[in-house]
């Protein structure tokens, strides 16, 4: 589904250091992967480089059969949906429905189908009542789900979620985890919240100062965390 090979990213193309160095991993269909790491490790940078917002200095990103380059950004961005850390960065239209319709309209989806897709997604996430609500009146949890709906409506095959539990209380985080568990899409979730991803994700990547330190299955996680001095 997603294959990243020797990816390096620099914020300033003319200068070192690199924000990401020689990162390689892959995600299979339907797999949920957590991307862990300290602040400034390069997690958000990695997400933005997977959709071509930050160009790669070296290496390749391949989604299904499509290799990321400047010519196919619209197709790549239709296949990969990004949910940003702060929902206020993402929900820029006045109402929830208007925001959900923003992406499909850019891809020329007919209006009747947009409404149908929006209703389905809102129903699946349990937020149908928010459809015509003004975005700035929503709570943090509602904004997070509305932002997720705005991405899911484009039917991406891979979801990238940047710190999805920030601004959420425990109940809202549980509700979000339940929503993500019911999705068929593959997910790459960057987080500091181990509790949130421990049971939700199948695989765990650990990024340290721009380098991928480890890549393990759920059953191996405890051992790796103990090595980092993070055991409970």
């Amino acid at each position, binding site marked *: 589904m997603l294959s990243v090979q020797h990816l390096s990213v620099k914020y300033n193309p003319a200068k070192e250091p690199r924000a990401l160095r020689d990162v390689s991993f892959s995600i299979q269909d339907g797999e949920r992967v957590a991307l862990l790491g300290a602040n400034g490790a390069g997690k958000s940078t990695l997400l933005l480089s997977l*959709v071509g917002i930050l160009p790669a200095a070296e290496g390749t990103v391949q989604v299904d059969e499509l290799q990321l380059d400047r010519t196919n950004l619209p197709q790549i*961005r239709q296949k990969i949906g*990004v949910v940003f850390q702060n929902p206020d*960065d993402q929900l820029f239209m*006045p*109402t929830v429905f208007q925001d959900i319709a*923003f*992406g499909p*309209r*850019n891809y020329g989806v007919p209006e009747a189908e947009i409404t149908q897709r929006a209703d389905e997604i809102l129903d699946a996430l349990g937020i149908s009542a928010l459809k015509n609500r003004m975005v700035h009146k929503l709570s943090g949890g509602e904004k997070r789900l509305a932002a997720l709906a705005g991405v899911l409506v484009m039917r991406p095959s891979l979801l990238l979620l940047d710190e999805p539990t920030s601004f959420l209380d425990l109940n809202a985080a549980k509700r979000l985890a339940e929503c993500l568990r019911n999705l068929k899409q593959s997910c790459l979730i960057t987080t500091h919240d181990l509790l949130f991803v421990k049971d939700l994700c199948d695989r765990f990547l650990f990024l340290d100062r721009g380098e991928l330190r480890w890549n393990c299955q759920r059953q191996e996680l405890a051992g790796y965390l103990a090595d980092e001095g993070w055991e409970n």
Partner: protein
Amino acid sequence: MADLSSAMRSFCSLEQLAEGDSAFHRLSPGAKLTITVVYAVCVISFPSRSLSALVPFAAYPILAMALSGTPWKTLLQRIAVAAPFVVFTALSNLLLDRRALYFLGPIPVSGGLLSCLSILIKAFLCVSAVLLLVSTTSMTALTAQLIELHVPKIFCLQLTLTYRYISVLIQQAQQMYTAYQLRSCSRRGIQMRDMGCFLGQLLLRSYDQASRIYCAMKCRGYDGTYHVRNQPPAAAKDILTAGGAAAFFF
């Protein structure tokens, strides 16, 4: 803090009014927009000294207010925000044209006084009409209608984004102000020496947020073109209402 909170409340109150359901609310955004534009053009087109001709135009805001159930107090509060700019312009006329045209008993009535009153009345009427439009029409419907009228899409997108992010900006300013107050030994307001840093930080935060919003838009296929749903064609009642109102104003 109180000022920012009240700004936020007043911002939300107009929006709540727009969600109402009345005969005036149910008119199509296009009809209301046409009525407002024709009304403003007619009001402005009167010569600066013809005050009595403006009197019949007061009927529209009064009628619209009654039909839409918009509270006059709310409307007057919003008009008061625009008042200082208008009053300043109007008062300058008093100084520029002091020649007496006629006398009301012992009181000389100058051309400046007449044009001052004319500016005040025209501004009051036009601002009332615009506020009545905004308080009975959602911003989404209004921008969609502007696009339908071939107003440049980039302008409509700017309007939508500005409208959406006013609340975020107010919240950010409020948070920064609270943090400032908590560490400022109970002084009231922001000290002048700190004002530059405060506004600079607010600007930088806004700039950062604008960059992130643009990234989020690109991630959802934005390529510089703003797409909106086509508006349904105007109904007969909307055309009749807009036409009747325009005929009355003319």
